[in-house]
């Protein structure tokens, strides 16, 4: 049985309000997350409602006939002709919807003029559009984001998540028969983290009896994935190690290079986009095998206590929510900021290339005025001839976070 039979968590009823209000919506997923399946489901449901649908994906644009994709010389110079043809077909109908799977390909290759033109047509109600795409390395900035903004400035977004445990278990049970089918299904859910495509990939490797160790075929697959993701590269391996240790601060506190790297791992479906707010940063046990099985570390108590002190000082000044939002911890509970500080400092000591120094983050977000104020509260003095970052560094020393 196909996992597509099961609920992927996004339905036409979730999409419709956005199409009515904005004329377009994007659905953001990750590798093997069920995007193409979802596209097919949505197309089917739309057609049942008598809506004219044009469904396109990378294959439609890049595979001209049976030509291979990989050879640049054989690829088309522009995908504009295909897009223009699709637009013509959409405009012939009263009620039409363009479902674009692999939308990152459209965004990458369409010309600027055509992107603007599509945006204008959506706004004027000529047709509606559902873009289904992979996450971007930088979801809210960068080149791909700029291209998407050129098409539609504030495209509403739905996130494709892994299947919830109960749904994933139901799906997993369809793969197995026999005495230990339930054990195997549970193994598959734990291993895949509920990622539909990964479930399908890993299903054949389930242990033949309860408690069996991972087999050679599974380990070979693990190694291949490790190579595909270039996890041996120094920065990436450092990142994955600290993630496994549950000691990586939130993404906005990482160095720009590490931010891009973690973005690539999110696309692969390995790392959860909100890893810092979860007890489990990876999307399934499979990724623990791929990352090399690192145990969580306990951050030193003095670091945690000092971080708490800093958080309390920041919250007393009423700046907690602002700073939390700036470091990607919107709606953070008490202690979350402190944990992020402690992780950042711990990383700063063990792998400084992964993080932006905490002093810089404090200086850039709180400014010299508040940093000096906090330092003054702590030490009774603040040399304001120093820069905001130097003051922040002094503040960190003062609270014991050097």
């Amino acid at each position, binding site marked *: 049985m196909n996992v597509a039979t099961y609920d992927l968590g996004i339905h036409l009823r979730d999409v419709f309000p956005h199409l009515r209000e904005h004329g377009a919506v994007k659905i953001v997923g990750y590798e093997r997350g069920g995007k193409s399946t979802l596209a097919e489901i949505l197309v089917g449901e739309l057609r049942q409602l008598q809506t004219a649908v044009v469904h396109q994906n990378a294959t439609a644009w890049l595979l001209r006939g049976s030509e291979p994709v990989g050879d640049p010389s054989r690829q088309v110079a522009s995908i504009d002709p295909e897009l223009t043809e699709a637009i013509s077909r959409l405009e012939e109908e009263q009620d039409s919807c363009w479902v674009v799977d692999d939308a990152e390909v459209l965004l990458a290759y369409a010309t600027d003029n055509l992107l603007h033109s599509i945006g204008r047509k959506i706004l004027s109600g000529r047709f509606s559009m559902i873009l289904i795409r992979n996450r971007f*390395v930088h979801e809210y900035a*960068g080149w791909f984001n700029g291209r998407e903004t050129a098409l539609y400035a504030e495209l509403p977004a739905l996130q494709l998540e892994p299947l919830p445990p109960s749904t994933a278990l139901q799906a997993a049970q369809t793969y197995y028969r026999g005495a230990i089918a339930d054990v195997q299904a549970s193994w598959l859910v734990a291993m895949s983290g509920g990622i539909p495509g990964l479930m399908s990939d890993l299903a054949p490797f389930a242990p033949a009896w309860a408690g069996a160790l991972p087999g050679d075929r599974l380990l070979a697959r693990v190694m291949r994935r490790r190579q595909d993701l270039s996890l041996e590269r120094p920065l990436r391996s450092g990142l994955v190690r600290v993630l496994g240790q549950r000691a990586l601060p939130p993404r906005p506190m990482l160095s720009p290079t590490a931010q*891009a790297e973690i973005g690539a791992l999110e696309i692969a479906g390995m790392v959860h986009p909100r890893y810092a707010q979860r007890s489990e940063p990876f999307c399934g046990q499979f990724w623990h095998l791929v990352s090399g099985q690192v145990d969580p570390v306990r951050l030193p108590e003095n670091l945690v206590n000092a971080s708490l002190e800093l958080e309390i000082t920041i919250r007393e000044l009423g700046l907690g929510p602002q700073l939390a939002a*700036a470091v990607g911890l919107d709606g953070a509970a008490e202690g979350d900021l402190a944990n992020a500080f402690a992780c950042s400092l711990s990383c700063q000591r063990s792998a400084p290339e992964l993080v932006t120094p905490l002093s810089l983050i404090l200086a850039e977000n709180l400014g010299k005025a508040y940093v000096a104020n906090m330092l003054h509260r702590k030490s009774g003095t603040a040399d*304001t001839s120093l820069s905001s970052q130097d003051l922040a560094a002094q503040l960190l020393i003062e609270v014991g976070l050097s």
Partner: protein
Amino acid sequence: MKPILMVVRDVQRYLETRHLAEILGFDTNDLANALLRSLHDDGVTDTAGLMRWVDELLGKAGICLVLKDLQLEFNPNDAKEILLKIWFSYRGIDALPQPGVWPNELAENLTEIALQVAASPAKLDAFRLMGDPLTALLRYILLFYAYELRRNGRLALQGEDGSQVAELLGDLNLSELCAHLKCDAPLRASPYDPASNQMIILSDEAACASLSRLADLAGEVSLLSPDQTREFSDCLLAILRAWHGDNQYTPKACTVAEAKETGFGSKLTCYDEMGRTIIIGVESPLTYGKDVLVRTTDKGNIWAPELQVVPDADAWKTPEIGSRKGRTVKMPARDQVFISYSHKDFKWLEELQTQLEPYVRNAKIKVWDDTKIRAGANWRYDITQALESAKVAVLLVSPNFLASKFITDKELPSILEAAKSAGVTILWVPVRSSSFEETPIEAYQAAHPPERPLASMTTAARDKAFVEICKQIQQEYRR
């Protein structure tokens, strides 16, 4: 009220309502002026500088709170630059013209695209997607950053470890990269220039060297010493000769009237003796190998071919500072005591002024400090003029003095240059203990023993020391 003052008022209100001014060492009784002095001390002269100053002081949280106070609509998740733009635009300050994208952004984009392609190699093609940003990056480097490249030998870009491309960019060797991409020839034949209508290409080696030197000098053109002005003029002459292809070509003197910051650096306005304007875009003297590409200004009148200049060899021998349309201003006489101090040491200036008052009243000396800058005047011009009139320069030396960017970058070099070239006497007064030994000041005469800074003395002893200092100032002034 001027837009910049409105921004300063916003900052003032922010600091006052949150009781942050005193901690920052500002005079809370006159906070607006204290903030303006801080702008002055930090050498803020343009919008970009003002943005940096505000950012340093307030940070993103502070900027958001100001926008909230002003009841402006904003998204707190937006980048600081966008939030600042909203604020400044509300206050009538437009952002400076800037390139649509900076080289480091292009480098980051390349890293991003490389990683995105690696995630979906079957769908996205690196060759197609990276060609344009890579070419654009090279063009920007050539157009806007050749100066930095030349100065630093390389352009530091982010993106190491990101991908092979990022590594390549992080350790950029322009000529190798150009050779690798085989794009040097088209770039030289047809440089990217979206704004201008005229392009001048100089191939003459001497002219290139002159242009390089001109660019070096142009950074501080408003504070050029007579020697530097002469050198500046010589550079101009060499370039004009190369441009006209005539080694004997001798136009009349042409000196700088105004240096204006643009999005890319300084734009110089000069007048010849017939009152004709020449605008020189030395902000982007673009070198590539032996060639120099000069981007024209938006007026397109850099060294305009129709400019007729009257040969007058003598004019080059005695260039004047501050020439104006159709007229020249003679070098002013040196008859002032120029006091240089950090605004954080204002009380020491007041004390010295008080002690010098009897000499001033009896017309024995003329004293200038920046409290005499005229309201609404171009303060930088006033300081330059005062320096040109200085016979004695008194420096109130403290850690604040040595830490002031404006003093160490602008004022002090001019004073030291004037001491060398025009015989200006430097007397420095140790106000507080400082690392003066690490500065050129050490070579000059202290008006008071450095091991006993004024701040460490009792009031009575200090008064006595000031009397001695004033006597020395007067003696040097009369010499």
